[in-house]
C-alpha cells in the first residue's frame, strides 16, 4: 500500500505543488544554470532550482552528501510527513529503505577527477568515496531516518525506480520488513552528464524553446530532456496501514521485469520485450487487460522509445489499447532517469486516488506510429481502477508496476 508520497521534482517539491503543476501541464524545463552551457550542444534541462537541502537535514549532514543523496533524504522526509508516520511508534528494525539510482554520484566523480588532474592525488577529498557511492541513496535515507531493516540501492538505468517498487513489495511479502521507504534519485545535470547524453543523440536540442522541448508521442519529438530529482514513497502492508489508520493512495498489485537482449541503447523496435513486462505486471497483479484504465508511460520523447512503447501497449492489450488513457509525465518534468519510475508511480497513485489523469503536453503534431489516447495537453477527470507504470532502461531493462485502487 502506498501511504505517503515525497516528490522533489523540477515542477515542485511536496505532493501539493507537484500534483498541481503536473495536472496544470506546467513544464519544468529551463536553460541550464548549474554551469556555463553556452558552448554545449544541449543548453536546457529540468533542474530543481529551489531545492534547499538544509530544510530537510542539518548542514553537517548535507555537506557529507552528494546532491543525489540529499534529494533522496529530502524526498524520504516529505514522504514520512505526507504519510503521517511517526517513526517513534514503529519498530525501526522492520523498516526498509529501497532507493535506486541510475548514475549515483557521477557528478562528484567528475569534480574529484578534475581535482586529481589539476592538483594531484593529495587533493582528492576524503569524503569522495562515501559521497559518490550509489548506495548512499538508500543508506543516507537509512541513517537520517534511523531505518534499520534492509537498505538497498539497485540500478536499472531509466527503469531503476520501477524496480524499487517491485523489490519493496517482495521484501514486505517475504517478511523482511513491514514498511519501506521506496523510490529513486538522480542528480547529474553537469557538463559530463549533459555532454555524454548529448553526444549519444539522446537529448532534445530545442534550446530556444525549453518548455516545448520534451514532446513525447509528438511527431516533432527529437529526444528527451535530462532532469533531476528524487521521489520516495512510504509503502506498507495493508495490515500496517489499517492498524495506524493511514490514508491509502493505491495498492502495489505486482510487477513485471524483462530484458530485451538486443542493443546498448535502443529498444526492440517491435516493443516485444516491453510487451512481455506489461503482460508480466498484469499477470502478477491479477489483472485482465480490461481492468486497466490508465498507463503512466515511459514516454521519453525519443523517436525510438515512443514508437516501440506504443507497439508494446498494442501487443499486450489488444483491442483494449485504444480505450486506455496513456500519458507521459516527462512532457512536463523531463526525464529523471533513476528517479523517473518513482515519479511515474507517484503520479499514477495520485491519479488513482484523486480520479484525475495528468496530460501529455506539447502534443501537437500527430505521428502515425503513435496512435493511442495520450491525454493530449489537458488533464482528464476519470475514475482509474488500475494503472500500469512503465520504465524502460538503456541496456534493454524493462520494468512495469501495476497499481490498483483501494476502496475504503
Amino acid at each position: 500500500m502506498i501511504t505517503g508520497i515525497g516528490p522533489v521534482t523540477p515542477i515542485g517539491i511536496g505532493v501539493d505543488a507537484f500534483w498541481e503543476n503536473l495536472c496544470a501541464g506546467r513544464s519544468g524545463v529551463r536553460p541550464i544554470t548549474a554551469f556555463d552551457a553556452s558552448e554545449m550542444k544541449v543548453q536546457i534541462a529540468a533542474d530543481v532550482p529551489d531545492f534547499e537541502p538544509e530544510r530537510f537535514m542539518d548542514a553537517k549532514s548535507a555537506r557529507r552528501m552528494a546532491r543525489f543523496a540529499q534529494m533522496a533524504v529530502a524526498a524520504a522526509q516529505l514522504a514520512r510527513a505526507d504519510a503521517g508516520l511517526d517513526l517513534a511508534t514503529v519498530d525501526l528494525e522492520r523498516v526498509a529503505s529501497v532507493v535506486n539510482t541510475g548514475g549515483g554520484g557521477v557528478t562528484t566523480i567528475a569534480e574529484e577527477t578534475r581535482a586529481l588532474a589539476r592538483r594531484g592525488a593529495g587533493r582528492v577529498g576524503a569524503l569522495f568515496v562515501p559521497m559518490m557511492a550509489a548506495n548512499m541513496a538508500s543508506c543516507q535515507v537509512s541513517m537520517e531516518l534511523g531505518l534499520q531493516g534492509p537498505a538497498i540501492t539497485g540500478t536499472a538505468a531509466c527503469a531503476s525506480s520501477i524496480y524499487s517498487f517491485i523489490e519493496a513489495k517482495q521484501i514486505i511479502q517475504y517478511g523482511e520488513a513491514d514498511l519501506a521507504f521506496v523510490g529513486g534519485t538522480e542528480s547529474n545535470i553537469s557538463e559530463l552528464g549533459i555532454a555524454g547524453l548529448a553526444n549519444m543523440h539522446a537529448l532534445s536540442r530545442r534550446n530556444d524553446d525549453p518548455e516545448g522541448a520534451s514532446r513525447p508521442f509528438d511527431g516533432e519529438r527529437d529526444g528527451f530532456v535530462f532532469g533531476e530529482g528524487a521521489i520516495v514513497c512510504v509503502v506498507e502492508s495493508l495490515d500496517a496501514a489499517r492498524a495506524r489508520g493511514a490514508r491509502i493512495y493505491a495498492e502495489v498489485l505486482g510487477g513485471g521485469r524483462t530484458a530485451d537482449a538486443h542493443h546498448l541503447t535502443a529498444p526492440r523496435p517491435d516493443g516485444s520485450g516491453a510487451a512481455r513486462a506489461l503482460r508480466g505486471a498484469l499477470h502478477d497483479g491479477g489483472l485482465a487487460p480490461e481492468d486497466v484504465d490508465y498507463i503512466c508511460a515511459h514516454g521519453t520523447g525519443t523517436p525510438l522509445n515512443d514508437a516501440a512503447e506504443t507497439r508494446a501497449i498494442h501487443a499486450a492489450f489488444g483491442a483494449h489499447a485504444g480505450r486506455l488513457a496513456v500519458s507521459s509525465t516527462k512532457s512536463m518534468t523531463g526525464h529523471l532517469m533513476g528517479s523517473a519510475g518513482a515519479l511515474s508511480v507517484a503520479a499514477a497513485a495520485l491519479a488513482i486516488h484523486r480520479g484525475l489523469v495528468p496530460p501529455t503536453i506539447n502534443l501537437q503534431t500527430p505521428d502515425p506510429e503513435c496512435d493511442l489516447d495520450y491525454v493530449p495537453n489537458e488533464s482528464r477527470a476519470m475514475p482509474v481502477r488500475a494503472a500500469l507504470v512503465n520504465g524502460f532502461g538503456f541496456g534493454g531493462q524493462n520494468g512495469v508496476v501495476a497499481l490498483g485502487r483501494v476502496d475504503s
Partner: protein
Amino acid sequence: MTIVAEQLRVPSDKVTAESHLLDDLNADSLDVVDLTIALEEEFSSAEQAIEISEEAAAEMRTVQDLITFLEEHGAA
C-alpha cells in the same frame, strides 16, 4: 578559523584556538582529513606548497594544532 567553520559546518563564533576538533566541533576522522586538504589548498601558493602528511593530520587535536603546523611550515 573561517575555513574550519565552513568545512565542519559549525557557527564561526564556536571556533576558537582551543576548540577540540572531535569533541567540541563534532568532527570525525574523515572530516579532519578533508579539512587538512582544504587548508593545503588555501595556504599553498605558487612559491610554496603546504603538505599536511597523513601522520601529521592524525596528530591534530585542536584548532591551535592546525595553526601551529601552518605557522611552522611557513604558511601566511
